[in-house]
């Protein structure tokens, strides 16, 4: 009886989550009357604005990942190694993007870095892109920090660092050759989550007026019938592919057993 009830709840849960997705996918294939077709997808992919916004967001996502890794890995490493007493504060700071809405952050940016400020980042395309990338890095900070911190927890950071130091390694060598390779799976998890966040982010890109994929999704949704659903399916596939890649990387990591 208990088992049946559990199966029933599971089935209801799956139905609740999967049914809208099936509906969405089905609708995205129904552009041609009476038959299923990939017309909506073809139209979307043929749209130069899709390629441009998609490409822009991919580049921004990669830059955000690089910046996030360079910021988070040394910070989490240093906090764990030398300043464990600061850990609760750092954790609190990294959680702030979850409680401060993106719109508040971006208005703060615009107020601080507008053309009449001491650092007029919004006055140039490069500056605005930089601001957007920093905004994306802020949004992904909770996930990236937690992923890296969890990765660091699985290795004996202090002893490995001391072992490397005794062999003549400096801080950069330690980070690049000892710490990074051993938290690579965790870093990649954070990186894929960051990628998914950036690809779907709307508020910051729209308010900073940058040609990103999120605002394009919204624009299509407001003006077309089938294409937005095709885009949504594409966005879901990207997210799932990222999650699948996390699983794959974890499984094929050669030395994960040694990290215990």
């Amino acid at each position, binding site marked *: 009886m208990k088992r049946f009830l559990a199966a029933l709840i599971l089935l209801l849960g799956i139905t609740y989550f999967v049914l809208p997705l099936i509906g969405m996918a089905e609708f995205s294939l129904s552009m041609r009357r009476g038959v299923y077709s990939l017309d909506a997808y073809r139209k979307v992919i043929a749209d130069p604005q899709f390629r441009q916004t998609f490409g822009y967001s991919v580049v921004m996502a990669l830059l955000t990942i690089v910046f996030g890794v360079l910021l988070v890995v040394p910070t989490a490493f240093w906090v764990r190694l030398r300043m464990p007493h600061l850990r609760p504060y750092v954790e609190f700071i990294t959680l702030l993007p979850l409680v401060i809405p993106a719109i508040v952050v971006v208005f703060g940016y615009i107020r601080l870095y507008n053309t009449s400020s001491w650092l007029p980042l919004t006055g140039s395309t490069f500056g605005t892109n930089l601001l957007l990338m920093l905004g994306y890095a802020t949004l992904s900070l909770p996930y990236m920090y937690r992923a890296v911190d969890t990765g660091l927890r699985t290795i004996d950071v202090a002893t490995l660092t*001391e*072992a490397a130091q005794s062999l*003549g390694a400096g801080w950069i060598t330690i980070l690049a*050759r000892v710490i990074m*390779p051993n938290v690579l799976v965790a870093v990649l998890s954070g990186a894929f989550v960051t990628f998914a966040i950036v690809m779907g982010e709307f508020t910051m890109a729209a308010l900073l007026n940058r040609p990103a994929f999120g605002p394009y999704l919204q624009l299509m949704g407001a003006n077309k019938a089938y294409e937005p659903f095709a885009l949504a399916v594409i966005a879901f596939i990207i997210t799932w592919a990222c999650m699948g890649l996390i699983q794959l990387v974890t499984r094929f990591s050669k030395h994960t057993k040694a990290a215990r």
Partner: protein
Amino acid sequence: MSFLTIEHLEKSFGPNKVVKDFNLNVEKGEFVSLLGPSGCGKTTVLRMVAGFEQPSSGRIGIDGQDVVRLRPNQRSIGMVFQAYALFPNLTVAQNVGFGLKVKGTPRNVIDARVAEMLSLIGLADLGSRYPFQLSGGQQQRVALARALAPSPQVLLLDEPLSALDAKIRLSLRNEIRAIQRKLGITTIFVTHDQEEALSMSDRVVVMHQGIADQVGTPFDIYNKPATRFVAGFVGTLNTLEADVLDPKTGHVRLPGGEARLGRPLPAGRITLAARPEMITLGAAGRDTSLAGHITEVDFLGSVIRIRADLGGQSLAFDTFNISHVSPPKVGEKVTLGLNAADLLVIGD
């Protein structure tokens, strides 16, 4: 001048002084053990030599150079840790070659040195394995090879055998000593295991509450303990309170008998000590006999450890297990023998 000199070394963590005026001179190629209970400061001394802790005061010199201000990666030291600390992402060969690679040594030189080191530790065939594919003993051998590969001036061993099981520990300690002798590398070994320290070292430093209580050869440490702590910590020791009857001749009254030590003693009440192996059941051939009764008999296989009560003071001693001789029984009255020259006078 000694190769490694530690002068007036002190270390405090907040108000807690964990190393107090520590001095040690180690000759080139010497194997010195820091022996003591947990929290005595031995690992802190080692970490200060390695550069992982900054001394509160004092000087550490290696081959005449003061290294206190040098960062760990600037000191020519090799270190082996209790937890192996092999880099999980690198193969055995890459681990061993890490220090040389960091130094920018040419590839062919690294390969040759790695092969030499792996052969030295008897793992020549395992170069392509990852650390998790090795046993604990093999991992520690690799850690030793990795520490030795860059030819450091000093080798530091921080309880490297503690995480291993008894059998591996025994074979590995012989191996470590053999390799150290072969390479002639100056070594400091930290351990809380007295058997390890006594069997491996040229000299032993017994540490207690941040102070080097005694520095000496294993023979001296065991047979001539300088303080009550060293006497109690190294080996098993019976202590007996005695009244000095004649300070000039060393005539003392012990519980259960009297002894003549034949050397001057301070007047009044003193503490004497005797190792269990110096005491025999029966006084034949011994110059001192003590009367008592048996309180405990522990059968340990090849030996039987017996505890006797001598006028309120307890004395442990060992006899060999002889199959056709029954051990004494609890409550049985016995005479114990020892030579007065084997009695140690214990200071504070």
